[in-house]
């Protein structure tokens, strides 16, 4: 599934753009000008990585500071234990699109149980 995110011109370097799909996905524009998309929800608990701290190719979770590699989704250290999904980014006519991965997401248990119960 290809989802339009935002115009490249509207996403400065060092910034993130969250797509409110289910589960949400965030596009990061690194200081070096690279674009990466990963699942927005930390695999540890319910925190949005779009709110985190972007440094190089890593984003640090705003709640408990596990760092995720934007290129691979891998996590560097506890408390998060599982990687986040990565998604392909495609730019067409100045528009950023995300090709959402078909792998199962690694959602934290508290979010997964809420989704399982359906919308509140």
């Amino acid at each position, binding site marked *: 599934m290809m989802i339009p995110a935002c115009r490249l011109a509207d996403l400065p370097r060092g910034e993130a753009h969250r797509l409110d799909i289910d589960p949400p996905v965030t596009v990061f524009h690194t200081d070096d000008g690279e674009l990466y998309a990963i699942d927005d929800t930390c695999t540890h*608990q319910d*925190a*949005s990585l*779009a*709110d*985190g*701290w972007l440094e190089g190719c890593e984003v*640090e979770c*705003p*709640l*408990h*500071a596990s760092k995720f590699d934007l290129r691979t989704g891998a996590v560097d250290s*506890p*408390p998060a*234990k599982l990687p986040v999904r990565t998604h392909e980014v495609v730019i067409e006519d100045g528009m950023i699109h995300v090709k959402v991965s078909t792998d199962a997401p690694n959602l934290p*248990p*508290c979010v997964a*149980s*809420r989704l399982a119960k359906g919308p509140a």
Partner: protein
Amino acid sequence: MRTVAVVGASLAGLSAVRALRTQGYDGRLIVVGDEVHRPYDRPPLSKEFLAGTLTAADLALETDDEDLAAEWLLGARATGLDLAAGDRAVLLGDGRRVAADGVVIATGAAARTLPGSEGLAGVHTLRTLDDAVALKAELAEGGRLVVIGGGFIGAEVASTAQALGLEATVVEAAPTPLAGPLGAEMGAVVSGLHTDHGVRLLCGTGVKGLGGERRVDAVLLEDGRTLPADIVVVGVGARPCVEWLAGSGVPLDNGVTCGADGRTGVPGVVAVGDCANWYDPRTAGHRRVEHWTGALERPAAAIAALLAGDGASAGVPRPPYFWSDQYGVRIQFAGHAAGADSVTVEAGSPGDRDVLAVYRRGDTPVAVLGMNQPRLFTRWRKQLAAA
């Protein structure tokens, strides 16, 4: 160093074990813990676990594929530390002696209780998984809950219980809850969440005692009022678990007195986590910080100090940080509010409980508080750490 004993098998102890292995220690490693459980995460005990969205299995701190090559002595209480005989040894309650070249003290803190409440059913403290299991079962029965103490744990329990449909009252002896960590102004903003959500907050009156024969039925206040209660949670703080070190020669004063890097002054002995009263170069004083992130991060510096012996020590630690989740609001705080002479709201508004507030001494930011402001908060926290 050929044998290291880590006493305390929770977050700080596990972080010390991990740090030993990542810093290249390949000798014998013994972990002593008085709980029977493998290390588990405490913050969800008052939040998701009590609410039923996380199970005990979700609380595990170790990963499935983690092999730390440690020997775990669980359900074993340390009762003493023998430094006299040249060889160091941790003494256990069952008479065993664990000889070690290096000792990491990570025994954390225990919930303070209310004198006279022993043996009265319906009265709870919340520190351990077993405490949380017992409290969760009682909350499921419903009824009137009185929380004694308006600190973070008390507030989280009241928030979770309110969401579960219980009628809750919070009693706080001080005029404003959370004035210690947040200052009176912001303490009032955060504790305003109680009344926003229909939880009664009674401030400025202490608790005289509890009513009831076998089971609690009331909380008696110093101002003469009586609050009927079916369940009481006592959230009046924690004391460091250091009795076992009395007379050992390890310096004690509100926990284990130690340097910024956990060194105790006794060669081969370091302290980490909630039991450590460490020197903070930023405030030029000792402080004991009962926050999760310190227990996770600071053991790396203490282990470096332990392995270096008399060698060089790590730099200035990051400012203390904690978070709390109450009534669906994410609260985050970093730094040290006590040193501030002003606090300004930089974004959001206190009335909406959506706030980014910066505490300053003169022009220098010394602390930052966020309510539902994770993005701005993260940026300010970085700035504090860099200062």
